[in-house]
């Protein structure tokens, strides 16, 4: 039997080192324990939990989901149990499962985020915090509000003083330059950025003449957005020197490798988990096999190793 060369899959995100680059995407894996009987959350790089807000939210009215070609629109509206119940009930469960927990928080104003960060920023068992600057489905404090580099930078600088844990800024793709936003995050002291959240989309029921969702728009996720998310992830990775977590349409190990080659330090598995609750582990296993077949020993060898082609013919 050929001796297996060691494969180090670990990834550093500021002060945090995760064991491998596959994590769950916020909002697609609940609070991390729901799938525990089919997928060991401790086997994943980390579990990013559903975005929590200061107060519990009941979410938007139905319909909250509309399937489109190779994608799905959602307008969940940040339904969540609120930060207090998250800390008192959900976090202990995840800790007992020995998962690495990255808590996602979302707020409508810099002040709200500051208060949220005061709750979770130093909470025992929270290894990192992902700040959701990119929810397309809320009336206030959504993606467009946060698509302003200065606002992002100032807000993150303030949040930085409230946590020593890994602080990740999750960005919206619906901007002219995700690179500019990523740079603002880096300047504000973020340890990493996530690129990207869902894209704003719309679907109309032509028989009723109304939205197929309870809101006019929703966020598009799934394979349809993979090429778009990959381009934005690549742009962000080239813009900053902090790690970038790729998100958008990752369904397989090959998809994950595309993001790593484009410059992502880690990848998030989202919609795929709805189809296959074991999707994240599946992605990890496939990725590992692909890396072994390429005789890779450390992720640095592939990260950003994508060979950019020459310039356009003009």
């Amino acid at each position, binding site marked *: 039997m050929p001796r297996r060369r060691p494969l180090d899959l670990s990834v550093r995100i500021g002060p945090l080192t995760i064991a491998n680059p596959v994590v769950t995407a916020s909002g697609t894996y*609940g609070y991390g324990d729901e799938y525990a009987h089919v997928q060991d959350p401790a086997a994943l790089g980390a579990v990013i939990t559903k975005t929590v807000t200061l107060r519990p939210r*009941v979410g938007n009215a139905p319909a909250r989901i509309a*399937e489109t070609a190779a994608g799905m629109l959602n307008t969940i509206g940040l339904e969540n149990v609120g930060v207090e119940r998250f800390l008192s009930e959900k976090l202990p469960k995840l800790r007992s499962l020995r998962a690495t927990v990255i808590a996602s928080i979302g707020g409508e104003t810099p002040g709200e985020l500051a208060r949220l960060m005061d709750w979770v920023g130093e909470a025992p068992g929270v290894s990192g915090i992902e700040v959701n600057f990119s929810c397309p489905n809320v009336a206030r404090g959504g993606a467009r509000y946060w698509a302003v580099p200065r606002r992002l930078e100032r807000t993150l600088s303030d949040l930085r003083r409230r946590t020593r844990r890994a602080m990740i800024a999750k960005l919206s793709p619906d901007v002219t330059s995700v690179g500019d936003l990523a740079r603002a995050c880096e300047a504000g002291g973020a340890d990493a950025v996530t690129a990207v959240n869902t894209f704003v989309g719309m679907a109309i029921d032509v028989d009723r003449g109304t939205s197929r969702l309870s809101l006019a728009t929703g966020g598009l996720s799934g394979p349809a957005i993979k090429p778009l998310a990959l381009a934005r992830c690549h742009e962000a990775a080239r813009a900053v020197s902090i790690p970038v977590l790729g998100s958008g349409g990752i369904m397989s190990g090959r998809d994950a490798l595309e993001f790593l080659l484009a410059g992502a330090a880690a990848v998030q598995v989202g919609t795929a988990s*709805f189809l296959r609750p074991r999707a994240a582990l599946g992605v990890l296993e496939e990725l590992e096999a692909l890396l072994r077949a390429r005789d890779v020993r450390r992720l640095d060898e592939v990260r950003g190793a994508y060979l950019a082609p020459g310039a356009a013919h003009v």
Partner: protein
Amino acid sequence: MRAPRPGWSQVTARVAEHSPYGAGHYWLDLDVPAGFGAPEPGQFVQIMLPSIVNPTLLPRPMSVAAVARRAGGHRLGFLYAPVGTGTRALATLARGAVVQTLGPLGRGFPLDQPGTPVLVAGGRGVAPLLFAAERLGRMGRRAQFVFGARDRAHLVALDEAKRSLARWGGRLHLCTDDGSRGSRGTVVEPLRRVAAGIDGPVVIHACGPHAMLAAVADWAMAHDARAWLAMESVMACGTGVCRGCPLARSEPSRRAFRDDAPSLLGNRDYAMCCTEGPVFEARELDWERIH
């Protein structure tokens, strides 16, 4: 509030039988391996086609219409109509094809409730009630079966229903919108008649088009009968994590909601169809906010 049922899994199932079943419907038998839990009447599974022939992203929810034990697992029966992309693709699968099956999901009909069970089916909504009738029979409980459809052709699986009732006892009451079979009109009239003939409390278990369920709910609430209704919603995960399938709670249900209720089931305003449901008692839901 009943406790959530855990214990679902996702397995590769094989098509054991697949054939047209009248009025454009299909009957599908899937063989699932032993690890897959035995579904209860009213529970559903999420069926996903192999990617090479799958035109949809998300799996499709299907009520279990029959369960039989077999060597190495169970055989699950489904009755469905190819109404759109996913179900039309499903209809192309030949015997021997494989699909991913996630389940059993949700909470079924509480068939052990005291009172005389009355099953009310509308069209292809008969699927889970075939299973319920069989289960009630095995429990030694007699059921009355009200079955309505738009016309006689759409009384799909009528023979199945008859066989089941013949075997286990119980009576069948048919109706059609056009009067081509049974009484003319909706299921409410036969339901009223059946209920009038029953001594003591009546417990309805119903599945069918939304308008029918709303009418049954109305009737039950007006007549002090319990009505357990199999609801539908667009779904993504089927397991409570995506929060995609809310149904609005009624005012009493909101008031009764306890803040420490399992969040997987829902919240104060909304119950998740896939976890707290798909079967709800009529009074749990706000019918004005469900379309």
